[in-house]
């Protein structure tokens, strides 16, 4: 599979140390197409261990950057919901994804300005680098993940208004990015005992990700007020919600051979040639459907 002109670092996954020219014949990973090499968390180290057989250097490098602890906690929770203790994916029909990637913002310049009339506006500029997303991973859903640390115990529901705007540097020389498109929507959350709020931004990010954008630059304005507009309580009390810059969660369908396709039963049958072939004489189906089918078959052949 080619990376469809995807601009991105052509480095292979971080676990490989051999420069391409020096040890390419030694390095089986380099035999894989570029689009496939990156992002296969498991393949590079497995291949590295096999190709480094002599040195037994099984100790792979620890990731260069350590993940955010909150993000790690969230992903461990997602893992527990999606797989058993032994790591077998749960047969959960509802989830079509076979890959979930969580990105924390590379850089964010938090502007905090308080306009008492409108409540406490929390706005950040976020830059996400999506280099790890491979050409074969198709976006199903994207979510901004906020972890709420309310400094005051919040007893009643909170209403937040969120405004997203995507920024892009039209050309490299441009200093400050211009706004390419924006989206405003309000969401009503029960903050009480929630640690996470997921904001679905799929439709907002779809055009950016569809164009194989490697860097997503967006500004997020968040205004949270106490009370519930449905009960038209007066939204005037501010809540001091210490909003931690959000992570970006991408639910993806990896279409490569290595990935597990739970609904792809055809593929399963192909992989199991040993499965006993269907017998020619149709078995009598306990629900009797088979006889009916046979008698119909006989009538049809007589008519013919």
């Amino acid at each position, binding site marked *: 599979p080619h990376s469809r002109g995807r601009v991105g670092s052509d480095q292979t996954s971080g676990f490989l140390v051999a420069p391409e020219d020096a040890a390419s014949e030694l390095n089986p990973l380099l035999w894989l197409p570029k689009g496939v090499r990156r992002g296969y968390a498991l393949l590079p180290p497995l291949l590295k261990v096999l190709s480094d057989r002599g040195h037994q250097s099984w100790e792979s490098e*620890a990731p260069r950057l350590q993940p955010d602890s909150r993000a790690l906690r969230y992903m*461990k929770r997602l893992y527990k919901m999606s*797989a058993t203790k032994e790591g077998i994916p749960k047969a959960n029909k509802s989830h079509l994804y076979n890959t*979930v*990637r969580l990105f924390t913002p590379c850089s964010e310049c938090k502007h905090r300005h308080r306009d008492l009339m409108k409540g406490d506006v929390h706005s950040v500029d976020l830059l996400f680098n999506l280099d*790890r997303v491979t050409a074969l991973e198709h976006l199903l859903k994207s979510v901004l993940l906020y972890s709420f640390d309310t400094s005051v115990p919040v007893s009643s529901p909170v209403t937040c208004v969120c405004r997203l705007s995507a920024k892009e540097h039209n050309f490299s020389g441009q200093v400050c990015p211009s706004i390419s498109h924006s989206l405003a929507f309000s969401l009503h959350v029960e903050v009480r005992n929630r640690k996470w709020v997921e904001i679905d931004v799929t439709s907002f990010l779809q055009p950016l990700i569809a164009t194989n954008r490697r860097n997503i630059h967006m500004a997020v304005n968040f205004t949270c007020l106490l009370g519930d507009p449905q009960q038209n309580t007066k939204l005037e009390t501010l809540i001091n919600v210490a909003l931690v810059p959000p992570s970006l969660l991408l639910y993806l369908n990896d279409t490569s051979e290595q*990935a597990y396709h739970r609904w792809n039963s055809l593929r399963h049958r192909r992989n*199991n040639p040993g*499965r006993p072939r269907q017998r020619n004489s149709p078995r009598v189906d306990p629900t009797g459907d088979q006889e009916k089918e046979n008698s119909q078959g006989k009538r049809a052949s007589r008519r013919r």
Partner: protein
Amino acid sequence: RDENLKEAPATPPHNLSEYFKQFLLPQNECELHNFRLSFSQLKWDKWIIAPHRYSPQYCKGDCPRVMGHRYGSPVHTMVQNIIYEKLDSSVPKPSCVPAEYSPLSVLTIEPDGSIVYKEYEDMIATKCTCR
């Protein structure tokens, strides 16, 4: 039945056992064996967060001469056995290999610090066959 017994020559027991030996299944017949590893043994636990333990299993053992339906082996397997026995012993006997697998979900930390949950196909052998 009696006249049959009269006709059949009384074969001495050791021939009988020899005769049946060819049909007996080998002692260490081809079957699935347990194997559990933890990613900390490979020192990969710095970047593989879950699962902590992984049981890939493996297939080991001799393939009986007459495969039949036991392993879901294609007829080719018996042909290969005949070639090995009758025509050319440099052709290998059928091997005991996995026939079915189950997937594995892995949670890993990528070099750039992002976190990925991935479901991989064919990571745990669940059934063996002779091929």
